[in-house]
């Protein structure tokens, strides 16, 4: 089955086209999305996560209409945002991890036990009763990842996951992401992180302007960005 498929997808906000008739099929295990600010990459991530509806076109993830069928979407796709404070909903770590599990249909007691077990699996058993806002920025980021992994979706989308992380946390996160069985779609400004990826998509003005292996796309992307920076001077 095609993992992620977009067919003639268009999105506008307040009359401005943000995504312009994009059609693409994404089946590779590791996919990076690059592009300047305002190129539409975050909108693309939100479309694939089923958080916003396209104005036209169709998006399927593992055959699921992720915007309309939210129940199936929960098992299909998970998204991690840039700022953990926008994502952590509950005061304690266990409640935070358990929330998604309850939404997936587990009873509260089971969800709690499962959440504790998952925290322990990730070597963070001592977080179970801790307050989320007392964790460091990097730890909170990690908590977001654990909360999404707990729901075991087939696809994980990350929107600038490394922004604001220190080097140790960043390296740990890289290692964790590399070991995942899931399909990973990652938006980033740091092209060095995409070196081992299977495929890189370059977005510009709401369209895909580059698509291929990292060695193929990244140099072109980098020289275009340099040219733009020089043009400003």
């Amino acid at each position, binding site marked *: 089955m095609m993992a992620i498929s977009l067919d003639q997808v268009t999105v506008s906000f307040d009359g401005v086209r943000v995504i312009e008739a994009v059609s693409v099929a994404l089946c590779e295990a590791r996919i990076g999305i690059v592009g300047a600010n305002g190129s539409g990459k975050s909108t693309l991530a*939100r479309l694939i*996560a*089923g*958080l916003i509806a396209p104005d036209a076109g169709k998006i399927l993830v593992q055959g699921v209409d992720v915007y309309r069928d*939210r*129940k199936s979407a*929960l098992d299909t796709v*998970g*998204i991690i*945002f840039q*700022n953990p*404070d*926008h*994502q*952590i*909903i*509950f*005061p*304690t770590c266990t*409640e935070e991890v*358990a*929330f*998604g599990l309850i*939404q*997936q249909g587990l009873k*509260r007691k089971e969800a709690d036990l499962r959440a504790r077990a998952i925290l322990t699996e990730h070597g963070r058993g001592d977080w179970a*009763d*801790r*307050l989320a*806002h*007392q964790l460091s920025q990097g730890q909170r980021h990690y908590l977001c990842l654990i*909360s*999404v992994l707990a*729901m075991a979706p087939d696809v994980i989308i990350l929107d600038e996951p490394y922004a604001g992380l220190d080097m140790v946390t960043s390296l740990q996160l890289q290692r964790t992401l590399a070991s995942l069985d899931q399909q990973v779609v990652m938006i980033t400004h740091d092209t060095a992180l995409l070196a081992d990826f299977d495929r890189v998509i370059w977005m510009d003005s709401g369209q895909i302007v580059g698509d291929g292996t990292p060695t193929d796309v990244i140099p072109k992307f980098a020289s275009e960005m340099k040219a733009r920076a020089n043009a400003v001077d």
Partner: protein
Amino acid sequence: MLSISLPGQSWAHGMRVGIKMGFLALTSIVLFWVNAWLALLVTLLGVVALYTSVEGAVRKGLWLMKPMLWIVGIIWVFHAFRGEYLAGSVVCLRLLVLVGLANFVTLTSRLTDMIDLFLWLLSPLEKAGLRTGAIGLALGLVMRFTPVLIERVGQLTQSWRARGGKGASWRLILPLFITVIDDADRVAEALRARGGIQ
């Protein structure tokens, strides 16, 4: 940083929220009939004993009580001014006991359990067609985002000062409002991502 929660595994944490809340409600009603200052003082000592039985609760409890002490102080001074020392003491003791107990219940209960209890109490309204699930979620979000909001005020004040502003200004209210609306948008998105709003 602010939070009205004290995670732990004590006896008070293990007790069911419904029982704690029921006890709290009952005590509140009974205390309104008690006008003997000595009885109230003994009850207050009982509350203090409750706090000492849970690790870390005394420090957190005192910290939560700080704004309350001001109010109690003002009420007592007001009564004293009118010569009603005894009546003032009774009112103040009663307030301290009730707020102390309520804080104790909140500190030792998990937010999700309290929301569940609240939803159970609201369940008759659900039959009348009200979406109580959304109310419960809103309650949880208020508790979770209070510390975030306070931090946001701090950040704005700092940016204000960094560029020469003095003290905290009423002019920060509008920017605060805007950042909060923006935050709310993103949180709604995160909730949807994990199935919170159908």
